[in-house]
């Protein structure tokens, strides 16, 4: 029994009204500025503006994909994003459950507050702390390594260490803050469920497995799909600050490349072309994940 569209609009009019300001917001602040995408098909002249810049078709796209460095950069980006996803995505879930299970309330609150402190550090400050800690001559980490009788490791000049350092520092910085959303989900679990589980003789582990985790699955799924969008979309600053001629084999990623060519070099059109390609791939990834998630469970973005 399917109602006509007109009928459904009428039925949902109050909801559409509630949605209207948000839709307007997206139009004004996202879609209108998106006209800038066209500069990727132009030789953009900043002074003359979009209207008077010459069209060049796919020139900038061809330029990127014919660049022998392009594949290395894409590969670096993909691997970094993938490892980050694998290691950094579960961390806040695990930590949130640890918080949830902590029975010393004051201790829990203290650790919780402390754990999201790193989120407030800018990447500039974070990187300078990393450089200090990891120095092979004066860094505390290498002093510890040496006191155990090993040779110091030149962490930041070694391509094989870059991803580890990047992801570890990401986990350190983002995990605490990332727990908040899962803690909110945990708070919504009905305590009576635990009561019932205990009646059935479930121990703490079983309760966690059968009550806690299922209780936050919708939040996990949504965060999962949204995180997929971040795989290619790695912010520029930290990679740039921790990258150097020594570790560039792994540290040079799309965003640092775009920065060098697009911003230092003034290739606005080129940079936009790369970003647009990236957006398309990301969109496809999100779309596929969403389809998969809808097939498997009930939660999805749309």
């Amino acid at each position: 029994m399917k109602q006509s569209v007109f009928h459904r609009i009428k039925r949902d009019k109050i909801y559409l009204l509630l949605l209207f300001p948000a839709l307007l917001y997206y139009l004004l602040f996202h879609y209108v500025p998106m006209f800038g995408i066209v500069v990727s098909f132009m030789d953009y002249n900043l002074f003359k503006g979009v209207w008077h810049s010459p069209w060049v078709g796919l020139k900038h796209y061809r330029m990127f994909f014919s660049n022998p460095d392009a594949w290395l950069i894409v590969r670096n980006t993909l691997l970094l994003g993938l490892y980050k996803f694998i290691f950094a995505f579960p961390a806040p879930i695990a930590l949130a459950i640890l918080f949830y299970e902590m029975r010393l309330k004051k201790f829990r609150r203290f650790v919780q507050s402390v754990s999201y402190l790193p989120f407030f550090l800018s990447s500039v400050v974070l990187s300078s702390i990393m450089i200090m800690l990891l120095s092979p001559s004066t860094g505390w980490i290498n002093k510890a390594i040496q006191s155990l009788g090993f040779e110091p490791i030149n962490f930041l000049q070694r391509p094989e260490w870059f991803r580890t350092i990047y992801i570890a520092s990401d986990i350190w910085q983002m995990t605490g803050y990332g727990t908040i959303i899962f803690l909110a989900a945990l708070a919504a679990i009905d305590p009576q469920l635990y009561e019932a589980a205990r009646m059935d003789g479930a121990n703490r582990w079983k309760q966690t497995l059968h009550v806690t985790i299922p209780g936050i699955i919708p939040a996990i799924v949504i965060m999962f799909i949204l995180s997929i969008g971040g795989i290619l979309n790695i912010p520029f600053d930290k990679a740039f600050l921790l990258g150097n001629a020594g570790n560039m084999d792994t540290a040079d990623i799309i965003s640092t490349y775009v920065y060098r060519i697009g911003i230092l070099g003034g290739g606005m059109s080129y940079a936009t072309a790369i970003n647009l390609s990236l957006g398309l791939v990301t969109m496809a990834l999100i779309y596929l994940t969403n389809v998969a998630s809808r097939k498997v469970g009930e939660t999805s973005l749309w």
Partner: protein
Amino acid sequence: MVRKGRVGAFDVVNFLLLLFVAIAMLFPFLHMASVAISSPEYVVRNEISFYPKGLQFDALRAVFEDNRLWIGYRNSIGYVILGVFISMALTIMAAYALSRRGLVFYKPIMLYIVFTIMFFGGMIPFYLVMRAYGLMDTIWAVVLPNAINTYNLIVMRTFFSGMPVEVEESGRIDGLSDFTVLTRIVMPLSKPVLLTIGMFYTVEIWNNFQGALLLIRDPNLYPLQLVIRNLVVVGQAGDVLEATTASGHKVILESLKYAIILLGCLPVLIIYPFIQKHFEQGALIGSVKG
């Protein structure tokens, strides 16, 4: 409501793990705080670890004497209050509408929204459009362009969708309209997620300096983080050890920098514990029954 049970191996391991987390997260802040209140010779020689040496408060005093920071504080608090209000209103209304089962045009609307995460026209077109809207040098420049965070919207919608249908129905039976179901029933029941998202917006607006960097030229409208960024990032451009403060004192840049950064995240740190108690087990149910 605490789940009962004996203290077992699980609790001990958990305690140790969290203790490790606390130490790992705290150490750079101890370092920064120590540097902020240590005397210059130790700071220059990088001899400060987790406790201050040669205690002195010149850097802190310099920060407190700097009028720009207080203007920034005032502005940021204003931006957060106004911004969180607008953001929450828009997000709640939209999330509630989208959580409605079988909403007409649901899929196209969601695509319309999600699409914006992936594509951005670039900084310069963005700037030109905001300028054309007349947002330059107004408080709206800080508050409006990021009014809705799509991630927050989706998370909130997911929480709303998870609400049992019966709860809403009961409201309708009592004769409430669609809108009053939202304000009287859905919102009170969603306190944890509303607080969470509210907190996210607070932090986001508090930390955001990029919008102001592009669109605000008037120093009297600078948010705190932009003031901090100007002092910290720009100050690092040259190789300098000392900075001259507003009052004409010379202070070790490193100490000044850390003092400013710590002061900058203080307000959000103070708010958090008040929100935390709502994240504990059973908070939702408690609010239903209470």
